[in-house]
């Protein structure tokens, strides 16, 4: 019995850790969706690019990988702004299918651009703490996992402060609630589009950094599945609801790792889509969604 409890704790902890990556992705998608009402399916490619930038800076400078996270977020924030200006702004309001198709194109460009620069072999980054573990109860938890959870909480707290306390954050929330109303009171909504896309991309970069520093294998194709899952978390939690994204992210992380442990690795990806399909059959607008589409 004690053993089973330990296993459950372990699975729960893995889920928590995997959930952090999903939460960062889903929160970014949600922020962008809230303001622009669009979805970038190539969001995971930003995670992947973030992973490569962190790994490259780490290899060149030898800095503590966790210290690189801010730099990577800044770089990807700029990349996000460029994507928004060049790709998504021209198709704003031309129909939702166009976003899906445009994102497909972006996925191909990013994956193969990265493969062209860095090659497509699987790589691993060795964190300086990879051998350090912390005993929690009867199990040994890798220190990296604990740092990742703490970093995620810090980033989310920072985002929350930004959105609630600063005038920029208030403008973003206003645009998100009512675009026309925001325009009337003099908010430059296009600038808000740009900024929220940048912040969303920076969150994906943070997820990518945490992905590599935790010692997960990375190659140019790692981004798509997490992003699609993150988007299904967004749907599950209700479009535009950030608490929904956090609950959904944790749920997915735990369900996946539970499924992988108890049913076998092949079920890891399927279980999350199974949850999504079942939820959508009964609630086509998601768990916390209101009217939806």
């Amino acid at each position, binding site marked *: 019995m004690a053993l089973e409890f330990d296993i459950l704790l372990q699975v729960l902890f893995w889920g928590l850790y995997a959930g952090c990556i999903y939460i960062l992705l889903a929160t970014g998608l949600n922020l962008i969706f809230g303001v622009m009402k669009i979805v970038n399916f190539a969001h995971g490619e930003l995670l992947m690019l973030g992973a490569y930038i962190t790994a490259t800076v780490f290899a060149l400078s030898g800095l503590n990988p966790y210290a690189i996270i801010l730099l990577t977020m800044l770089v990807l924030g700029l990349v996000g702004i460029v994507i928004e200006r060049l790709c998504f702004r021209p198709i704003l309001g031309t129909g939702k299918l166009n976003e899906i*198709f445009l994102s*497909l194109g972006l996925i191909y460009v990013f994956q193969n651009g990265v493969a062209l620069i860095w090659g497509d072999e699987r790589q691993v980054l060795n964190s300086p703490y990879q051998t350090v573990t912390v005993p929690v109860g009867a199990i040994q938890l890798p220190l990296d996992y604990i740092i990742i959870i703490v970093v995620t909480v810090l980033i989310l707290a920072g985002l929350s402060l930004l959105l609630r306390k600063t005038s920029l954050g208030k403008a973003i929330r206003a645009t998100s609630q009512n675009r026309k109303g925001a325009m009337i009171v003099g908010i430059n909504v296009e600038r808000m589009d740009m900024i929220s896309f940048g912040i969303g991309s920076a969150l994906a970069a943070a997820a990518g950094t945490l992905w590599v520093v935790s010692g997960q294998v990375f190659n140019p194709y790692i981004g798509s599945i997490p992003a*699609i899952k993150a988007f299904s978390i967004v749907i599950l939690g209700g479009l535009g609801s950030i608490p929904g994204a956090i609950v959904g992210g944790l749920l997915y992380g735990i369900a996946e790792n539970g499924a992988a442990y108890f049913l076998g690795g092949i079920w890891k990806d399927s279980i999350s889509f199974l949850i999504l399909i079942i939820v959508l059959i009964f609630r086509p607008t998601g768990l916390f969604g209101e009217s939806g589409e």
Partner: protein
Amino acid sequence: MRVEKKSLSWYLTAIALGIAVLLPLLAGMSYHILNVAIIMVIFILFSSAWNFLAYSGQASLGHAAFFGIGGYVSTLIARSAGLPPFATILAGGCVAAVIGLLLGLTCVRLKEWFLAMVTFGFAVIVQAVVASPLSATTGGWDGIISPRLLPADLPGYLLYEYYAILAITILSIVCIHLILRSRAGLAFAAIRENETEAQAAGINPVRWKLLAFTFSSFLTGIAGALMVHHISFISPEIFHAETSFWPVIYSIFGGLGTISGPVIGTVILTVLWDGLKELGLTYERFIVIGLLLIIVVIFLPRGLVSLPEVLRERFARKKG
């Protein structure tokens, strides 16, 4: 010397058919070209099937599921019952259609991203089911050998295969054309443009959406079976997301919601794709396709088929 618009499209269709029929002769029966042409024709069928569903306003990102199901069902029946693959591809299409109907039932209330996510996830789930619990019959990740469409000892085998697949594809496109020209086509367009208004006009969206889903899955299943018998091998890799993305890319490139769009898109992109491969570009060709897709979505949202019209409008505006 103004050619009637209708007769012009007839001429173009006739020319395209002529090229398709004469291609093996023009290509000098090169094994490589014939091989590429066969795969291209299969993808024309696949893209047309996907586009048929998109015509009713439903964009699937998981058509690999039906493509693979068609392939697996046809292969397994052909292997276990010893039937000729020519008969079993129909079974593949029918099973894909039934599963498509069931998925359509779950998706009938969903739109856009929701539908895209559910269909994408469905392909992931089907892959897991085929690779793991059904591995005793499907051979798991190792895959299984699939019998050739026609007895492989036939002299000039590929030539016959090409014409057989071409005939099936043309027949399917004619069916799609007839359906879209009938009341069903009007209903699809009405639902796509505005479901609520369509309902107000007395159209039952559920019925028509299910019809679109079922027939699209059927044709996709046939295309998948043809592909698998052509390459004579099938593994769960067939359910990969990329399989789902190609028909989407081809259809958008050519022109969404038109009969000729998927055909033109598939032909041009296949030629471009193989041309870039000849140049020894691997990643670059994906980048080229991705950039083209972005450019088409932004600047030519109705695809290449609308290019003459767009140019004419531009020209007329400049003149006027």
